[in-house]
């Protein structure tokens, strides 16, 4: 089964916020980087992309033929996505085990595990 693993940063410090990121100890930062690398190298994982911070987003809607844009993400900045990857796993329990290893999950963010539509 394939799952999209959607990483929400929430309160987690990221390199995008140099001040918050700088407040983390060096070994913590290294552990975070190592954890993400390990996940990308896990069998079944197709590494995805990291997005620039939610503040850099532009949201587009079309109403009555008019294109409307707003500054920022679709949801609140706190809730917005930071990155994603694809996971091929036997079942939801395996996906949950992996999701729990994503640093964002333990540092104030969350991972949404969404099954992919298969035709």
């Amino acid at each position, binding site marked *: *089964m394939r*799952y999209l693993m959607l990483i929400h940063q929430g309160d987690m410090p990221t390199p995008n916020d140099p001040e918050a990121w700088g407040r983390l100890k060096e070994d913590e930062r290294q552990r975070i980087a190592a954890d993400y690398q390990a996940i990308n190298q896990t069998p079944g994982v197709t590494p995805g992309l990291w997005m620039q911070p939610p503040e850099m987003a532009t949201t587009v809607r079309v109403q009555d033929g008019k294109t409307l844009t707003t500054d920022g993400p679709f949801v609140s900045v706190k809730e917005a996505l930071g990155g994603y990857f694809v996971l091929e*796993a*036997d*079942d*939801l*329990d395996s*996906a*949950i085990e992996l999701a729990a290893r994503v640093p964002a999950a333990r540092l104030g963010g969350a991972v949404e*595990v969404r*099954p992919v539509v298969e035709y």
Partner: protein
Amino acid sequence: MTLEQVFREEWGRVLAALIGFLGDFDLAEEAAQEAFAVAAERWPREGAPASPRAWLVTTARNRALDRIRRDRTLREKTRLLEATQPTKDDVGLTTIPDERLELVFTCCHPALDLDAQVALTLRTLGGLTTEEIAHAFLVPRETMAKRLVRAKAKIRAAGIPFRVPPPHRLPDRLAAVLAVVYLVFNEGYGGRADLASEAIRLGTALAELMPDEPEVHGLLAVMLLNDARRDARFADGTIVRLAEQDRSRWDQERITAGRRRLDRAIALGGTGPYALQAAIASLHLDEPPDWRQIAALYRELAEVTGSPVVELNRGVAIAEAGDVKDALGLVDALELDEYHYLHAARAELLRRLDRVEEALAAYDRALVLVRSAPERRFLERRRAELVPYG
């Protein structure tokens, strides 16, 4: 056993076996229903087969296989272990593996909403109809039907596995299962006896399936010991407190069974919340109860659960043991202002200390918060008794 009883006993096991085999709840349910319908029609005439369970599973399995063969999209959507030939009724399966544990852990998977867990458990393991479950939880039938459909769709779409969790996950997952059963029991505890009995049936099945888990026996003990006093708990539409209950209306068989389960839980080294609650429940049945022991056990339980409600109960036990002032001090420190029992308990304690005005105020606060009619009547009566002295 009547046919009705056989069906009730066998539904969960048959369904579990089919889900395990077919990998699909809906297909399994339809097939099971068909098989039971045929049995209901045929067995009264021809007599029940030697092995009703094997007959039911075989019949259901064959029907499901037929359907899958005829319906290609179904075939692609269900996982079948291997291509299987239909088996004859009596030759059939000699042993049907009991997959009810797999089923209950699937139904109580944390990826499902608690409401969904409860509904699915009652439907699949309990064999209650959607109608019966809706009625029990006071929601419209349509709401409950949608809840079940959504839950099954989630299991399928998200890939919730049909399996007993691995050892490192088992404690948490088992706690979730027990919480569902206890929830069902508590919904019934206030008067809906059918749900309480259903919870006890589920708890009993769990105890058979997981005989070495102390908390499983603990929960069953709690339910049996509390249910034993069901008939004595209400009189004239009001609550009857423990000390005033007519003990001849206590179900001695349930008490004996409950205490046996408690012994088993303790023998297995159980010190978890259900084992503790069961020990407390058992002690309450003695005449007179050993309140100091009960208070000590509440203290242990409070440490395990961190629950202020447990602390409240500890306060009550301390008062019963004679330390009313200490009890009031404990109770006053709790942050449970929206909980009517807190104010009811305060009222009782203040009353014993002859602080009548304060007791009346506490009853009033409790009456604002109380929801059940029998409890309201009880509080009103207790308050009325104090008024001549206020």
